[in-house]
């Protein structure tokens, strides 16, 4: 059985749109949705509501940056600090292109960074690419000379 995709998103509309986009990618993976950072941690550590879940890490974590309780950056930090979770690819989803978010995420070892585009089509493409090869969506760290694809 395929590992599930963990989607951490608090905004119900973004959640719905992301799920719709994932649905259109025809990925076979299950999508587990959690609504805040604390819940994400519970899932990953198999605590609280998720203490009874099947063991095993998700295939990828799609992590919104701005989350209630524990925010995305903190969740990222915890994942990358935990030996058992380090290997799990984390894709930050964010509304902003704020440089400090990007820089911090890269420092913490994020695997990809997706600035949610305004257009749904572009978003759909981004999500579809994620499933196949998320590195294409990589926003380069600020200051590098490499031209970046526009999101």
């Amino acid at each position, binding site marked *: 059985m395929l590992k599930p995709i963990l989607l951490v998103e608090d*905004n119900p*509309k*973004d959640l719905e*749109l992301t799920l*719709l986009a994932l649905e259109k990618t025809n990925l076979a993976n299950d999508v587990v949705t959690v609504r805040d950072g604390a819940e994400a941690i519970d899932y990953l550590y198999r605590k609280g509501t998720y203490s009874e879940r099947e063991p095993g890490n998700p295939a990828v974590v799609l992590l919104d940056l*701005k989350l209630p309780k524990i925010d995305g950056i903190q969740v990222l930090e915890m994942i990358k600090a935990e030996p058992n979770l380090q290997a799990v690819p984390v894709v930050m989803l964010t*509304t*902003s*292109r*704020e*440089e400090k978010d990007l820089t911090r995420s890269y420092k913490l070892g994020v695997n990809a960074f997706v600035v*949610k*585009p*305004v*257009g*749904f*089509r572009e*978003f759909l493409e981004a999500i579809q690419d994620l499933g196949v090869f998320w590195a294409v969506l990589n926003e380069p760290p*600020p*200051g590098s*000379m490499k*031209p970046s694809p526009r999101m």
Partner: protein
Amino acid sequence: MSASLRPSADLPPRVDLSNCDREQIHIPSSIQPHGMLLVLDPVTLSVIQCSDNIGLLLQKPGDSILGLSLSEIGGLDVGRRLLHHISKAPIQNRPFLLRTVTISDDHRERQYHAIAHRTDYYLILELEAVIAPPSVDDALPDVHAQVDAFTLKAEEAASVAALSQTTAQSIRDLTGFDRVLVYQFDEDWHGIVVGEDGNGELPSLLHHRFPASDIPAPARELYRVNRVRIIPDASYTPVPLTPNLNPLTGRPLDMTFSTLRSVSPIHVEYMKNMQTASSMSVSILQGGRLWGLISCHNHKPMHVPFQERGTCDLFARAFSLRLSALDRAEEFERGIEVKSVFTKLFAVMADSNDFASALSSHADELLAFVAASGAAVATDRGYLLVGKTPTEAEVQMLADCLFKSDNREVYQTDCLSSTYPAAMSFTETASGLLAIAVSKIHAGYVMWFRPEVVRTIQWGGDPKKNVEYVEGQWKIHPRQSFETWKETVHGRSIPWTKNEVDGAGELRNAIVEIVLRKAEEIAELNQELTRSNRELEAFSYSVSHDLRAPLRHIVGYAEILRESVAEKLSEKDQRFINTIIESSEYAGKLVEKLLEFSRLGRAELQFNRIDLNELVTEAQADVMHDAAGRKITWKIDKLPVVVADLMMLRMAVRDLIGNAVKYTRQREEAVIEVGSYSTDSEVVVSVKDNGVGFDMQYADKLFGVFQRLHRWEDFEGTGIGLANVQRVMERHGGRAWADGQEGNGATFYFALPRKNLKE
């Protein structure tokens, strides 16, 4: 006047002109022959010492009366009771006239003034011959009327010069000397004649100067203590005292207050050189200091009786009172003047953010403040010059020198070139300098300048003393010649008065206080700015999230809707949906661009070496996505490597290249040229196109936020691109501008300062 003004004496170094300063002039152990001196035991009134000429009078050897009481000496009746009286009086060292006594010798009767004073150990009785006996015996001249008349004249004198003049006149009227001088000491003890009255027998010395060595320190001290002395005949032969040493003290007799004291042989020679046979001087004191002398000369011997000398002393004291009043009045007036200008300057500085420009924009007041002809305000931001000053470069060097030599408060000189040789080249603007330090950390000064005042100083003869080698010793002789010796003084200004220097000091305190207050205000403002900047940052962050999210949702749901219902909708309804999507996307783009723009203002610059050709190539590739199928000719020069913030410069280049592509859209063949050139201070990059161009009258609008010069239907866009370019350049200390013509293409330029290249 400082010592440097005096021409250096052309003498071997080991001969010291201060020899006179060591001469023991108060213990000559001899007297002038116009009287006799007796030193008496204060209790027994027996004679301890006497001048040898008393023997002549008594026709027996002088030493035969030693040990005898006054009353035991035949022919000397000077009033034993009076002597007893003063011997019991508290010690009083000022000589006073006891009475006139008559002493007969073989030939005739002669009258003497008996003058006595006390010292610590003994009583000194002097008998001064009355040369011209008063018409009525013992009748005192009308001192009251004389002093009254003089006081009136002195009160009318409105200046020191007038006071000196009237005093010289009054003294001459009173005494009958050929010439009377009022002689003033400067702070270095050189003398200048400030008032004179004479009958022509002796040459005029008005305004002549005399070197300090003419009246050596011991003489000045003696003059300060004992205010009147007289030499009736300079060609006199001194009369020694017997015994030579005082038996009570074992030392020579202290003759400080003796009226008959024999003067220094050097002084006698000096008088001969001046062709004066007789002289008298009366000291003028002010605040305990010897201010000057009333110096009287006669070409023939003459004597002034004791009482008249006393009157002269009263005149001198009235003079000094009037002098103090004049000084105070002058000081007071100038003080008020300085104060009122100060108040005005203070007000304008307090109202201004910049004390330097406040001061320099009130040039008249700034100069009037200390009666200067030029001023400069030196701060870390530059030099503001007012009136007649040295050049800015000279002022700058001067300020640096002041700072290096640790002048942190008030500095003043009336001869700048004597301490700062470079000032030789600008003596005509700044021989005098008054400077106040207004910063402790850099060369911040307010400076006032005064021009050179070329003065010809008339010395009373060459101010060098002749030195002679006699009997194995260096001997100093006073002037051999009394020719006027002129010296022209260069590099000096009118000196700054105490009021002016004090006023400048006060201004300094005020400036320091104002600067300090402004600094506090700025610090407060900075804090405020930091806070509001943080708020703004938080605000843009939340805008970027919270405003973009709903826009994204509108687009997202509209697209999903379009997909699922498109087939069922009319073309018109489909267009509505498309418009919703387009408008929301545009709104999203606007938000993003605005954020980008605000980020440009806040983000810290990170300098990298950037190959501009690489950046242009990158931008080309980027914008060509939207220009597929168009015919564009690129002419790209070899561009330099610059040092700048990569993200920002990339954005600027992309905006300019993007614009060039966009606004040539209607051309069949677009030609876009990218070139560069360097100046001393800048690297300039130009992007030229053959597009629609613009009307130059809107050139200044081009770089504003949301400024668009074209209709939306012709050229889409947010109206932020060029504002970004401008802001990027501003952040780098550079600039951006444009050239164009409507319908005829445009050239956009940006310039980066070359100094960035060095980083």
